[in-house]
């Protein structure tokens, strides 16, 4: 289990990895510490998600990719 990540301050453009292994790029950050608006870049478990925008829950974010 990784340390919890504070998503509140992640700037748009940041790539994050979700619990099911998908990678998404932050489109906008409402800065509520709970949600991110992001676009899927990779999604091994559900390839149909790639290119789609979604709200990602903070507890699903397991890694922040260095830019």
């Amino acid at each position, binding site marked *: 289990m990784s340390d919890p990540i504070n998503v509140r301050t992640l700037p748009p453009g940041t790539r994050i990895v979700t619990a099911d292994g998908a990678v998404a790029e932050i489109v906008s950050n409402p800065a*509520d510490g709970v949600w991110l608006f992001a676009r899927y870049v990779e999604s091994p478990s559900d390839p149909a998600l790639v290119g789609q925008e979604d*709200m990602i*829950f903070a507890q699903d974010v397991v890694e922040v990719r260095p830019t």
Partner: protein
Amino acid sequence: MATAHVGGYRPGLVDLKTGQISREIFVNEDIYAEEQERVFARAWLYVGHESQVPNPGDFFVSGMGEESVILTRDRAGQVRVFLNSCRHRGMKVCRYDEGNTTVFTCPYHGWSYGTDGRLVGVPYFREAYHSQLDRLQWGLVEVAQTCVHKGTVWATWDKDAPPFLEYLGDFARYLDQMFDSWDGSDGGTEILGGVQKWLVPSNWKFPAENFSGDSYHNISHRSVDMVGAGPSGSGRRDMPELNLARKLHIAIPDRGHQTTAYLLPREVEVPAGYQHSPVVSDYFKKCEEARRQQRGDWGRLITLVGEVFPSMAFLARQPRTIAVWHPRGPHQTEVWRWFLVDKNAPQDVKNFLRDYYIRYSGPAGMTEQDDMENWGYAHKASRGTIARRYSYSYEQGMGTEVDNYEWEGFSLPGSVTDLTQAKSSEHNLRNLYRRWAEFMEASDWDELASWRRAQRAAAE
């Protein structure tokens, strides 16, 4: 008149034939609970000012009765008012006083709502809810109706309430002065930064009746009249030119709104006030002339304190403020006070007025301080089993009001009492409580909108 112990509201507690009102309506907890339902859940309530939410995503957390509400401007630019409570488990979705946001997120379980109220974020929607939750049904609770009137934002929880302007009726003309520029141009006022909020230990109807037009209580402000907090820095709080005017109490009987006003004579030139500050004196003199020019007879009317039923009070002259009486149980009221200035006034004028507003109004206001002492201890001394058997007297000036009041060829709508000689009357207060009793007794808005029945009868 002594009244026996009552469980809740019943007709007769407000007895306008004898001019007596039972203390129960102020101190009784059952009546308080009933009035939340019958008055605050049905009436139009003041929420805030458009200038507080100029841009999409701007929000201001306000109140409607006991409820916390969010006044916001959604992404489409629409002014919206929502109950500040998560649909999942009730947590406040916004605990900031104001700001700008894209979402209102509940910190408890993470449900998140757009500025249009739609539920947009549900944690583990696919996993825990198996994508079964109908998110469209679980948006923030929105008021039934919203109205932006000359920059002010109003809302009601009742879908059957008449449109806001119909709710105001003839009172709208009297309110113009509150929301228009002093020179008479439409709208044109803005809110100064900072809303005063404080607790007063009395039932909300004490301040409501005070602002409805209780001229009789001037004696309680004698100390400030002596030391002077007036706009010119000394002397009476009023302005000298008002000695030339007719002093009026104006009530709109079927609506429950009322105000006090001065009607200036047609031919007499208005002497300049605010002599200590030439810039301010000059500004008001110019505005006064422009207003008379533009508004004709209506330009001679100077609205003072008044009340839009039930809980929004205003002072249209200086200090120009809006107050809302938020009920916090039968024995406590949270007062919120906004201050307005002409948007286009020179900065010097705004500064001068701001300075005066703070000195006069609010908890540090040299005038308002004494009011709160009176409301608090009047309330406290009315709570006892013995005390509440004895009604208050509202008999002053009964029967002296007239319809179609006219002076110098100018006729005013509403039910008017001329106090130039009489000095005081409780006509406006009786009007407030008449309407309050109607709200407590009426089963629906069809009954409350009595003017519609009158119009229908006239048409037949």
